[in-house]
């Protein structure tokens, strides 16, 4: 008996798949028999509808649609797209996006109330669709020469026509790109962590003989050097970077840099990343391969109306990363208001100093014991300020969109980011249901544990 055994047993006891039946063997037989997929499916229909919607949208490029019209939806939002709620509860409640209905003990129901400071004036905003700039294989071939990775791009084994992905692999060095346009370079340096493998008592390979790595800060580039590397590499790759927007962290064990992915002068809300190992070598670099195509300018609802959308849970988008980093509103932040213009007067967020308004972040609360409360605890939140910004969302086909929205700050120190497009312009998923847990499940027998 040892720590590992106890840990493993405890995790196995909590296995969420206990009791799930093994799938019918026909699922294998059908694959081997080349079971044809139906030529017309819901997925096909949805794709066709999406294409039709985009074709419709293309007709209205550069036009501002009056809200009185009822245009075809621009796109169909993916379920739970852009869970933009900067709160500790968010990570607990909505981390598993795949569940149709989520269960959590200690059910908390939030009531959102618009504060008197919020504007009831709408505005207008631009909608952009992400579109791949470069063919994935051409992109990888070009990046390979920059990152000095030998090899040719190949389609990954798990690549599918719907979600294609490509990579170049050479030892511990990888270049990958996915259907969404993200690409990354990684270079895992085994020499830094070389160790001798020792077989443990239970026959499982472990690595207790690994020597403790020693820090070598003298090998890591200085902050100035890191800045120059990022600027130089970004220039070679063809992505925007400027020293003022760089966030750099450096310690004795490595370094890290991030900066916004800006395309055509618009902050997409996505971040580029670069990492350096303790030996000073570049170990990771990621960016994107998409540009933004305008799909038109549209009316937007007011911040006050947007508050009523928070509790629906399906209007969420993700604001630029800086909102999460400091949870402060900068009235004229980098391109935050690009394309999302408040009406005649600025929203309340621009009139006050949210940094002064923001209370201290609430401390994490202990997880309540299930079945203690079957009635939700009602927490009333007042939205005290807002800021117009652009939000990232994904449609049901995995395409990236940048749409106008508001970051709505509440009186407990966190925020929700809500799309401000009028009803009907985008097709929303069904509302998400969050349910209380019925009670503690009976623990499975220890004998079921396989070790």
């Amino acid at each position, binding site marked *: 008996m040892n720590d590992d055994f106890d840990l493993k047993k405890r*995790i196995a006891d909590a*296995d969420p798949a206990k009791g799930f039946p093994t799938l019918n063997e026909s699922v294998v037989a059908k694959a081997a028999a080349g079971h044809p997929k139906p030529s017309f499916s819901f997925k096909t229909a949805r794709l066709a509808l999406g294409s039709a919607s985009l074709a419709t949208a293309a007709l209205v490029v550069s036009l501002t649609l009056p809200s009185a019209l009822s245009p075809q939806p621009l796109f169909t939002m993916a379920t739970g797209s852009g869970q933009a709620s900067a709160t500790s509860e968010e990570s607990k409640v909505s981390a598993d996006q*795949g569940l149709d209905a989520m269960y959590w003990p200690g059910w908390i129901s939030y009531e959102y109330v618009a504060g008197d400071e919020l504007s009831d004036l709408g505005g207008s905003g631009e909608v952009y669709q992400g579109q791949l700039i470069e063919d994935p294989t051409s992109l990888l071939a070009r990046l390979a020469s920059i990152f000095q990775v030998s090899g040719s791009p190949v389609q990954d084994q798990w690549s599918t026509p719907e979600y294609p992905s490509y990579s170049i692999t050479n030892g511990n060095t990888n270049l990958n790109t996915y259907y969404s346009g993200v690409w990354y370079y990684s270079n895992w340096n085994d020499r830094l962590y070389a160790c001798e493998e020792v077989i443990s008592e239970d026959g*499982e390979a472990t690595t207790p003989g690994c020597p403790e790595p020693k820090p070598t800060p003298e090998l890591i580039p200085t902050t100035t050097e890191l800045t120059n590397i990022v600027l130089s590499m970004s220039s070679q790759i063809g992505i925007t970077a400027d020293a003022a927007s760089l966030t750099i962290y450096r310690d004795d064990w490595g370094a890290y840099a991030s900066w916004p992915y800006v395309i055509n002068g618009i902050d997409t*809300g996505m971040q580029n990343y670069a990492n350096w190992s303790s030996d000073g070598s570049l170990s990771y670099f990621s960016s994107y391969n998409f540009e933004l195509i305008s799909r038109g300018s549209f009316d937007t609802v007011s911040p006050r109306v947007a508050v009523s959308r928070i509790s629906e849970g399906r209007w969420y988008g993700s604001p630029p*990363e800086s909102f999460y980093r400091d949870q402060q509103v900068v009235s004229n932040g980098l391109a935050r208001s690009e394309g999302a213009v408040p009406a005649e007067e600025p929203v309340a967020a621009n009139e006050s100093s949210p940094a002064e308004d923001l209370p201290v972040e609430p401390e994490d609360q202990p997880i309540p014991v299930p079945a203690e409360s079957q009635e939700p605890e009602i927490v009333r939140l007042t939205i005290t300020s807002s800021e117009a910004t652009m939000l990232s969302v994904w449609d*049901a086909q995995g395409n990236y969109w940048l749409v106008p929205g508001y970051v709505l700050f509440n009186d407990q120190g966190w925020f929700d980011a809500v799309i401000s497009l009028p009803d009907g312009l985008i097709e929303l998923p069904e509302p998400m249901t969050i349910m209380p847990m019925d009670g503690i499940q009976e623990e499975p027998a220890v004998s079921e544990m396989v070790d």
Partner: protein
Amino acid sequence: MSPEEFSALFRAHLSQVSAYLARRLPESAVEEVASELFEIAWAKKNQIPEGFALPWLYKSARYLVANYHRKESGRSRILASFQEPVAAPSAEAVALADLGLSEAFSALTGSERELISLWALENLTTKEISLALEISENAAGIRLSRAKAKLKTLLSDESFD
């Protein structure tokens, strides 16, 4: 490989694949993703390393699970959504049976949860984990050791025994 040989080989792994997917997907999606996985396996049957069909299935299933969540959620938290794919059970799923473990589990990164899950739930060896995650065996061992140490530390606050 004939269809019969393929069926015989992969039927043997059906229970593990079923459980792997059930830990990471809503029940309604398990069969569809499994079908997709075995279709890929059939299409790539000649590229699957002999004797390592199960790790290969986990490796491919990992991407399908990640794709499924991307498709269903469009999750766009910048720091998490478009990095390396991660297919780990959620803390919520574990919470149904062990709240203390769930709390500690939720404090791990997605990659750490994935390592721990492959070790404790899928019962993979370090070698198999390295194949599933496409990293070296040394790297898998080191990362797993660190993840276990971190989880033990987190659990120690509630008198993990």
